[in-house]
């Protein structure tokens, strides 16, 4: 049985894992780099080991140093969190070799799902739909027409060497196939010196929907329903919710079964996530599998009522799953907002720095997973995610209202954060109506960036506050009396005595 867990991570996720450890009576061990001596995860843990300089490749990504800390602390198990070494097959294998339990899947599962081509092959064998298309290059014009007709328009012609949108053409009409094929090829040739192209079905309004699964060592696999993650900026998730406003019970059941099939095909063990791309008509295709705990896992925990980290530890202990599929249901609605140390008014420029003041939102239905505190300086070496606000409500509408209330109460000064931007998303009609896909932020750019004209007298109040703060500081500076020379009490009492004697 696991008695002591080393958490090979930092920030909010390290603390989130430690909370469950504490509940289960498990000792938690933190690791930290030079920049993180003051970090909350070091303070929250029972034990902490220094693992090197601030850059992550010399500390949190350094397998030898983490293993060394695990041995020194005599930890039975390592929880990798997300990011860093969580999807590193070599690390999983190394733990096995060192006889330390890795709370996550085997090296085999990680590498099977990590490589896009093997993943696609494994999934196809399991009978799960993938985005239709060719993996062989287009040989000729006739070949192109034949293949595209088979897949069905619209399609994307993509350069095999492609990247950055170059050598890519969207084909919507049959008459455009040949001209666009030629254009894609010549652009690819110019950009990459390679004009090999292939064809993939174009999903015009994609939704990003993922399924949480749990699998034990005894062949039991369950899914914990979906998470809608379509609110993204530069492929980075911003807001997630469950249930998805797009979903219906029949499709949910079907996708859940397919998610389980993927986990079985990968011989998976632990908590994992199957990502699907879904179009407006609820056609869905496998995208990839994340072989770790996700950032957005708390919304599933809230709606299904299961502590996923606790389940991970039970599975790592070799126990059977605590629940069967029939016992699970979704209760109410949950939304997560990710708060980043980024400046939404300035193209989301990173904003590391000193936290002068923080007020965290409280109240019914609000969970706050974070790690910053007043006086903490956010280091510039790591991810800008500072906290996650997870809100639950009976209905989707109630959840949005509650999230707005929580964001209103959430105050962080000293650095720029995305709180204001998230508030605007909560007010965007497309989001409120649940009518959105991965183009949401782009489509609503104007609305999301617009300053609220109706700030009332806010501007005048801002001027007044600055003016008063400045004049008060000026007064204080004038009033400062030069420090008197300190005289020892012995000396002054001696002097007094000699005075009195006279």
């Amino acid at each position, binding site marked *: 049985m696991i008695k002591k867990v080393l958490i090979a991570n930092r920030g909010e996720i390290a603390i989130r894992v430690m909370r469950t450890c504490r509940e289960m009576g498990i000792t938690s061990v933190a690791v930290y780099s030079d920049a993180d001596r003051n970090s909350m995860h070091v303070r929250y843990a029972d034990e902490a080991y220094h693992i090197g300089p601030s850059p992550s490749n010399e500390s949190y990504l350094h397998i030898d140093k983490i293993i060394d800390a695990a041995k020194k602390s005599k930890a039975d198990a390592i929880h990798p969190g997300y990011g860093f070494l969580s999807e590193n097959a070599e690390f999983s294998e190394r733990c096995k070799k060192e006889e330390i339990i890795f709370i996550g899947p085997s090296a085999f599962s990680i590498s099977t799902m990590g490589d896009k081509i093997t993943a696609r092959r494994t999934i196809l064998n399991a009978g799960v739909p993938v985005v239709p298309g060719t993996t062989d290059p287009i040989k000729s014009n006739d070949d192109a027409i034949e293949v595209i007709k088979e897949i069905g328009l619209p399609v994307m012609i993509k350069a095999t060497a492609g990247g950055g949108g170059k050598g890519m053409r969207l084909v919507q009409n049959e008459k455009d196939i040949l001209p666009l094929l030629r254009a894609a090829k010549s652009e690819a040739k110019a950009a990459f010196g390679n004009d090999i192209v292939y064809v993939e079905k174009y999903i015009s309004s994609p939704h990003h929907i993922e399924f949480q699964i749990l699998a034990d060592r005894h062949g039991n696999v369950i899914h914990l329903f979906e998470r809608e993650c379509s609110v993204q900026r530069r492929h980075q998730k911003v807001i997630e919710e469950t249930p998805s406003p797009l979903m219906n019970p029949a499709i949910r059941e079907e996708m859940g079964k397919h998610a389980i099939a993927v986990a079985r095909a990968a011989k998976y063990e632990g908590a994992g996530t199957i990502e699907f791309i879904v179009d407006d008509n609820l056609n869905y295709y496998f995208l990839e599998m994340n072989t770790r705990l996700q950032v957005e896992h708390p919304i599933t925990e809230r709606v299904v009522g299961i502590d996923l980290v606790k389940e991970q530890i039970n599975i790592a202990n070799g126990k059977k799953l605590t629940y069967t599929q029939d016992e699970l249901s979704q209760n109410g609605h949950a939304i997560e907002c990710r708060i980043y140390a980024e400046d939404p008014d300035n193209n989301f420029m990173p904003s590391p720095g000193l936290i002068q*003041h923080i007020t965290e939102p409280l109240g019914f239905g609000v969970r706050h997973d974070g790690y910053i505190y007043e006086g903490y300086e956010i280091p510039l070496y790591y991810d800008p995610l500072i906290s996650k606000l997870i809100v639950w409500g009976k209905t989707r509408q109630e959840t949005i209202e509650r999230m707005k209330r929580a964001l209103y109460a959430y105050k962080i000064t000293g650095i720029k954060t995305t709180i204001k931007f998230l508030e605007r998303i909560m007010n965007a009609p497309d989001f409120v109506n649940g009518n959105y896909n991965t183009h949401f932020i782009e489509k609503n750019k104007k609305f999301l960036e617009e300053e609220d004209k109706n700030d009332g*007298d806010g501007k005048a109040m801002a001027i007044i506050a600055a003016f008063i703060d400045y004049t008060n500081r000026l007064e204080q500076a004038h009033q400062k009396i030069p420090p008197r020379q300190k005289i020892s009490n012995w000396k002054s009492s001696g002097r007094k005595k000699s005075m009195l004697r006279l």
Partner: protein
Amino acid sequence: MALEVNIDGKSVSVELLSKEGNNHQIAINGNIYEVDLVMVEKGVYSILYKNKSYNLELIRGKVPKTYTINTLYNSYDVDIMDAEAKYLNNRKHDDIDDEAVISSPMPGKIVKIMVKAGDKVKAGDTVIIVSAMKMESEYKVKKDRIIKDVLIKNGDTIDGNQPLISLE
């Protein structure tokens, strides 16, 4: 005494007319505001104006007398323009017009320096790459210039607004 205050680049004149406890009477460009103002927490002011409650977060800038102020929906840059600030500002303007230095507005780490002293660079050339929180930003020159001096080296950790490269 009236003070000049810059808000989002616009200048207004502010004067404290009277003060009694928390009650302040303040004129902004001649418009009089009667407010009840308290600093409730470090950097947080609560203002009651016409019985409406405003919460303002004051972030003091690196340069004294500059503030970023967050209201519920907006964020304002406010500078107090006293005599010293005006003088410094005039001097700084000279520098900016001349584009004598390239600096990064945020703290970070130097990833790559693309130039050395004496190099001729063309408009749009990247001269330095700075990384912060896993994101890299490239800094470019706006005109054809000559590099005068490189003030930092690869791998250095820098503060916000620290001069990195000076130009001729």
